[in-house]
Structures are given as structure tokens and as C-alpha cells.
């Protein structure tokens, strides 16, 4: 009787298996499910195997049992993004007024909803005018991973929602923060990065290899022959290069910092460098990009097996990337345009990726992003993207 429900779950992309559906039927037959509430809990625990899909499940459940409209993901995302941006900008109404082109006094007359609508309209009109680093909608924190992220700590627990119907609980969408496209939390980020481990034997031979020992002892007619092995250590080298300059990266700095903290704990060898917008002749070891330059030409001296990870929004004026003296810093005038420098890095380190906090839907609108995408495989800075990036750089060849 719940076949539609099952197929609807499948259709929205929750991996549900027929076996689990049959198991749900079994639970129904055993009389374990006596109400919609029970059904909500039972079906979720049996059918849905990851908290990442709990949010989708809630939506489907509410849709199927209450007729709540299933939203197209895009619509949700844009308005969320817009709302986040708007909240940020409302801290400084004057700036906002300038940006959307109305007077500050008029602005205060609009309700938040009207303002949002107005803003969305402008956003739609604005799809083409993205050039010269002056685009006013696009780079400023429109990623779903943005600063407006809630964290799971603030979420509802079933235990306190006793007096609500399951449909209401489902409509609250309390697992939204866990959904796959949701904001990255610190621990999720750590988990994704942990996959960067690469264990190789290293150090003194101080582990007894029992199996080998027994084999050798047998061969030795029972005289004990102990075989030692090296222990496994993580020897992966990682270079992180972070764009920490300019207002366009500001909304992501907190996020990127956490990423750093995690990264530091994860690897034996981790170098971190900073740059502004794109890379020219130097990377910087200090976040201020002033006192500790690292010449790019030194990079080939490092292990080519090093994983090179660049985090930046890749959004800038095209000349910064393409022109021979594109650097906004006068000190860097080697005559090589930045894109050649990036190609050089990609060639030096075959395992390299670019991680971009800007959501992929907007990539096509920024020329420099398109250009850099040709040089580095680019992934978005979400849990999903991070996982893909990690599996990409951990590939053997």
C-alpha cells in the first residue's frame, strides 16, 4: 500500500532497496506500526540509511501524507542564498541601498519579504553582467556552505516533540542541516579530510609479523624464527594554498580556517600557503602575505607526489589571470601571466585540485572560474565536493 511512497523516495534520490521495503512490510504485518507516527519512525529507520537523506525523507513524507508541495531544489537554494546575503547586507543598510539601486529611506519601507523579492528579481536580471571583478551579486557568499550555517547542536530532537504529529515533525525539516548539500560543519569537514590518509610502511622494523613468524618457524622445523616488519605510518604530504585576500573570500574565511585547523591535526607534513585571488611568482607562508615569500620556482624541489590543494573562489578580473603583469602587487613582475603559473603548478604536482566555495551553478557566469577549471579539476566546498576532491587526489595515477 505504500508503494508510491517508496517510489517517490527513490525518485528524489534516496537510495532505497526493495529488500528494505519488504522488511518494512514485514514490520507492518507484525503489527509493530500502529499510527502515522510509528510509520514515520519505522519507515525512516528501515528505509533510510544515512542522516544525509533524513531531510529529503521528511520532505517526501510531508508531501505524501499532507500534500505539502515538494520544492524544486533550485528554488529553495536561491532563496536561502539570497536570504543569507540579505541578512549580511542588512547590517549595513546604506551599502545595500546603493547596491540594489534604491534610496535608503525607501529601503526601510519595504518589508523583508518585499525586499527579498526585489532582490531576487534583480538577481535574475543580473545573470550576464559578471565581469571586471565588479559584479555585485555572485561572489559575495552565495554558497550553501556559507556563514549563515546553523550547526546540528541547535536541532530539534524527537524526544521533545511528543505532542506533534509525525507530519508536523517532518515538516519542520529538522534534518536539513545534515542533508548532503547542506552547510559543512566542522566535524563533517574533518571526516571528509580523514580520507586523505595514505598508509605506507615506515620507520624501524619493530612489529612482529605473526603469520610470517609462524611460517618461518615451521620452515625452520620448530625453532622459533621471529620476523619483524615496519609499522604503517601516514606519509602523505599535502600543500594547502588558500586565497585569503579580498572581500570576495571574506564570507568563507571562518570556514576555511576550520579546514586548516583540521588539516593541521591530520597530516605529518602539511605546508600552508596564502595568496590573493590567484598565484603569480610567490606564495606566502604568512597570512598577511608580507614577510615570508615562497618563490614558485622552488616548488619542483618538493616531492611531486605531494597533494596540492588550492582553495579560492577563482573570481577576479580576467586581466589578473591572463595579463603578463596582472598582479595587483608591483613586486611581482616576472612577465609570466598567472594562468601560466597555475599550469606550472598543475604540471609539477599531478595530484592537485581547486576547491571553490562558490556554488557550481554560478561557475559558468565567471570567466576566470571557467578558465581555471581548464587547469585544475574544480570541486565545490561542500561535504560532497570535498569528498569528490579527496577521492580525486587519492587516485593512484
Amino acid at each position, binding site marked *: 500500500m505504500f508503494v508510491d511512497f517508496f517510489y517517490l523516495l527513490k525518485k528524489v534520490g534516496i*537510495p532505497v*532497496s526493495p*529488500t*528494505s521495503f519488504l*522488511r518494512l512490510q*514485514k*514490520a507492518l504485518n*507484525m503489527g*509493530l*506500526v500502529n499510527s502515522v507516527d*510509528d510509520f514515520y*519512525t*519505522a519507515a*525512516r*529507520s*528501515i528505509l*533510510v*540509511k*544515512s*542522516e544525509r537523506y*533524513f531531510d529529503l525523507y521528511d520532505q517526501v513524507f510531508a508531501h505524501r501524507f499532507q500534500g505539502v508541495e515538494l520544492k524544486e531544489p533550485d528554488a529553495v537554494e536561491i532563496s536561502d542564498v539570497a536570504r543569507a546575503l540579505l541578512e549580511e547586507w542588512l547590517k549595513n543598510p546604506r551599502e545595500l541601498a546603493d547596491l540594489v539601486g534604491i534610496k535608503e529611506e525607501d529601503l526601510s519601507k519595504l518589508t523583508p519579504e518585499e525586499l527579498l523579492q526585489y532582490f531576487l528579481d534583480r538577481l535574475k536580471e543580473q545573470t550576464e553582467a559578471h565581469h571586471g571583478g565588479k559584479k555585485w551579486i555572485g561572489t559575495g557568499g552565495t554558497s550553501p556552505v556559507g556563514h549563515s550555517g546553523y550547526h*546540528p*547542536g541547535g*536541532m*530539534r*530532537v*524527537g*524526544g*521533545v516533540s*511528543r505532542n506533534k504529529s509525525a507530519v508536523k515533525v517532518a515538516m519542520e525539516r*529538522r*534534518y536539513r542541516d*545534515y542533508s548532503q548539500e547542506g552547510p559543512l560543519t*566542522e*566535524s563533517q569537514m*574533518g*571526516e571528509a579530510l*580523514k*580520507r586523505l590518509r595514505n598508509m605506507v610502511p615506515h620507520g624501524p622494523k619493530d612489529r612482529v609479523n*605473526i603469520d610470517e613468524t*609462524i611460517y618461518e*618457524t615451521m620452515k625452520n622445523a*620448530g625453532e*622459533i624464527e621471529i620476523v619483524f616488519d615496519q609499522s604503517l605510518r601516514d606519509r602523505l604530504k599535502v600543500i594547502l594554498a588558500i586565497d585569503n585576500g579580498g572581500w570576495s573570500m571574506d564570507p568563507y574565511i*571562518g570556514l576555511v*580556517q*576550520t579546514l586548516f*585547523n*583540521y588539516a593541521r*591535526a591530520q597530516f605529518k607534513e602539511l605546508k600552508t600557503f596564502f595568496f590573493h585571488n590567484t598565484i603569480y611568482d610567490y606564495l606566502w607562508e604568512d597570512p598577511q602575505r608580507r614577510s615570508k615569500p615562497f618563490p614558485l620556482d622552488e616548488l619542483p624541489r618538493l616531492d611531486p607526489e605531494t597533494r596540492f590543494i588550492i582553495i579560492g573562489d577563482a573570481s577576479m578580473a580576467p586581466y589578473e589571470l591572463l595579463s603578463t603583469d596582472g598582479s595587483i602587487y608591483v613586486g611581482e613582475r616576472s612577465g609570466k601571466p598567472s594562468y601560466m603559473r597555475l599550469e606550472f603548478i598543475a604540471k609539477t604536482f599531478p595530484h592537485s585540485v581547486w576547491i571553490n566555495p562558490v556554488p557550481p551553478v554560478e561557475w559558468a557566469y565567471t570567466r576566470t572560474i571557467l578558465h581555471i577549471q581548464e587547469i585544475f579539476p574544480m570541486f565545490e566546498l561542500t561535504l560532497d565536493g570535498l569528498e569528490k576532491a579527496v577521492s580525486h587526489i587519492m587516485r593512484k595515477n
Partner: protein
Amino acid sequence: MNKAIQNRTFSGGSKYVLDEELAKIVNISIALEMPLLLKGEPGTGKTMLAHAIAEALQMRLIVLNVKSSMKLIDALYQYDTLTRLNDSRFGDSKRDVSNIEDYIKMGKIGQSFASDERVVLLIDEIDKADTDFQDDMLDVLDQMEFDIIEIDKTIQAKNRPVIVITSNAKKDLSDPFLGRCNFHHIAFPEPDMMRKIVEVHFTGIDKELLDSAVRTFYRLREIKGVEKKPATRELINWIRALRSDPDFRVKDLVKGEVPFLGILYKKSPDYAVAQNAVGRFRA
């Protein structure tokens, strides 16, 4: 199987505050004889749940703490070759060297199968082990039996244990594995729930202390840029410390002072960040 045991339902333990949703899931899993996979932040009581189930259903609890280097066979049984080799060379034990069975020791899963009464088997932090471990374990848990190759004997579960598996989501579990489990994600408790949890641990705790401690705790959890947020376990230890300090006054918490911060934050960078943020509480 014994119907009386099967029909026993779980409604919480003496030290465990159960939410209704989770109780339903536990009972469905017991009835369907499916392992229950629990995920959630550290400190949300995943392990405690298994203890509570064991206590409430009056079953023995067997805990398998999974380690990263673990192979399935370690969890099933161990053939102690070294002892046997030693006995064969020196022959000073009561064991019969020619009888291999004397050198077979049951692992945790083996014990839970061999037990005469139904037990609760907790497989803790399964994600620490590699995927091979999980895949190998599937068949064993599905068939409820395993072979001891050395003595050519099949061990069958006398009673199907109630299986609880916990995961901290360090690694993704394989799809076939997930397919054989019921799944639940334990979210971090809300303040109201947390108050109940604390009350269970400290019966008759001073209301004022409870309120301010929980409020301060949730405020501390808001601090950004921390690697390991304090969880339930830390809160309980912290309250224990507060209560045992004769100089401590509840008013200090209201004022924004946080004594014993080191109980809540155990990593030194986190501690520094938290200390900084606490400094701003007072302002």
C-alpha cells in the same frame, strides 16, 4: 526463540533518558531481529543506549570495541598458536597439546553466540575498522553462525543477540552493510532534554545550578572554530566538578565565569579559543 523474551520492549534505563522516537526504533529492531546502527556526534549517548537496553531487558551486555587493525576473525575466535607452540616445546601446562580446541578462545561475537541466554551485543565504533571487516561481518550476522577452520566446527548462535552497532561516521559504511541494518541518527539533545539527562545523573540537583550550567554549556557549544565541541559526557563531568568545589557559587556562572574550562575542552587549541570567547561573556 523464546517468545517472552522477544516480546519484551524497551522503555529506558535508570541512567538513560530515552526519547520516544528512539524507543520505537529500538523495539522495531528487536522485533525484526535486525542490527540497529546508530550514528551521531560523540557524546550523544550511542554507547550508553546499548548499556540501557541491556539493563532494561535484563540481558548481559557484550561489548566489542572495534579497533582500526581488527580483522573479523579476532572478533569471532582466536587460535592461540603461540601458547600451543610454547606448550609443545615445554609441556608444562594442563592443556592437551594434541587437542586444538583447547587453544581456541572465543572473541566477543563468538561469546555472544555461545552464550546460553540472549545477550545484547554492542559493536562499538565499527567505522574504525576497514570495509573488509564490515563486509565479512555481514554474513556472520546474517547467518548467525561461523566456522572455526582449525577444528572444522560450526558455531551457531544459541540465541540471536540484540545487536547494536555504533559509528562516528569516520568512514562510510558499505551499502550492503547498511542494507542489513536499521538506521538511526541521534541528534544532539536540546536544552530541555539535556536538563532531564543531567537530573538522571545527579538526583536532586539544585535547580539554579542545573539551569545556569546547562545554559552556559549551550552557550559554550555556540563558540565557533572549535574542533571538539563539549558533549554530554563533558557536561556531566563538569557539573560533578562544580558540585565538588566548595568555593563555587552559582552566581559565578550567571556572571559569565566558567570555572574548570579544561573539563569541557580537552584539546589545547580549543581550550585557547574557548578561553578567549569566555572572556567576552563577562563583558
